[in-house]
């Protein structure tokens, strides 16, 4: 695959993921409004007495929408990982879009009740506010991180501090296996790591996460040195890295190997 373009099959698979994703969110959004129109809860069949039957089509829309979201996330990550990190990261937009749109439903019905009540209905407003906080908090952090990355400020980045604060917690909670920031499909994670991302402020944190969980972090102590050097020389050979960049990156990898070895010894 040439870097200039992406194969048509990959693009179609990726776009199918986008279509299924937005379709699923639309179905959930409309299904939720239909249910809220009849008071916010409904039940059909089984042991339920149909005091409030579900509006036609909503069970299918809601269940289909939820499964569709998982399918869409899978397609976007699978095909996006063949395109670029940014294409894969689009899947993360699903979270704010989902929570903000469903939260908007809660807020709308909270402020404009359909059953003749006056004034705000707090039973709708509170979940609406919670949904917006859940949906927007990661966006705020991501924008801050993006601005810092653009400004190129080294060292004391807010995004790093967030990760540094969260990771030890993730490590201690990782009896359940929960470790790790980078997505498994993130093809560029290790390349960007070679630019020194994890070798500085992150290294001790990854080491700590690795130690407390017994799980190998996505990048960190157990990254295979030979593999990294091999990849670098491959990039050098195809001209992606010039001699100077290659030399720097190689030195960086070797330095990190030392840091990691030290971390290993401390265990």
């Amino acid at each position, binding site marked *: 695959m040439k870097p200039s373009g992406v194969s048509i099959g990959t693009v179609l698979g990726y776009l199918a993921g986008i279509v299924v994703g937005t379709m699923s969110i639309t179905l959930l959004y409309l299904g939720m409004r239909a249910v809220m129109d009849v008071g916010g809860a409904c039940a059909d069949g089984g042991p339920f007495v149909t005091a409030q039957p579900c509006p036609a089509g909503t069970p299918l*829309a809601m269940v289909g929408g939820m499964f569709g979201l998982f399918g869409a996330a899978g397609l976007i990550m699978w095909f996006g990982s063949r395109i670029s990190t940014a294409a894969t990261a689009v899947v993360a937009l699903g979270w704010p879009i989902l929570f903000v749109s469903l939260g908007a439903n809660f807020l709308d019905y909270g402020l404009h009740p359909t059953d003749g009540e006056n004034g705000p209905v707090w039973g709708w407003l509170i979940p609406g506010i919670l949904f917006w906080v859940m949906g927007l908090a990661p966006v705020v952090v991501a924008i801050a991180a993006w601005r810092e990355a653009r400004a190129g400020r080294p060292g004391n980045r807010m995004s790093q501090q967030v990760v540094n604060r969260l990771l030890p917690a993730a490590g201690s909670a990782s009896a359940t296996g929960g470790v790790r920031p980078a997505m498994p499909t993130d093809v560029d994670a290790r390349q960007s790591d070679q630019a020194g991302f994890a070798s500085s402020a992150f290294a001790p944190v990854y080491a700590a996460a690795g130690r407390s969980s017994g799980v190998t972090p996505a990048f960190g102590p157990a990254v295979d040195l030979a593999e990294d050097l091999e990849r670098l020389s491959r990039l050098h050979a195809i001209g992606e890295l010039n001699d100077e960049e290659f030399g720097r990156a190689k030195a960086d990898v070797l330095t990190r190997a030392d840091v990691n070895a030290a971390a290993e010894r401390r265990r």
Partner: protein
Amino acid sequence: MTETPRRFLPLLVVIAGLVGVWLGASIFASIS
């Protein structure tokens, strides 16, 4: 093999997103 230039991808993503919204609304209208 046919290839899609990367610069078209963002536009394609936006179009696909709108198609998905339209599809979801149509499906919902037809089942409800």
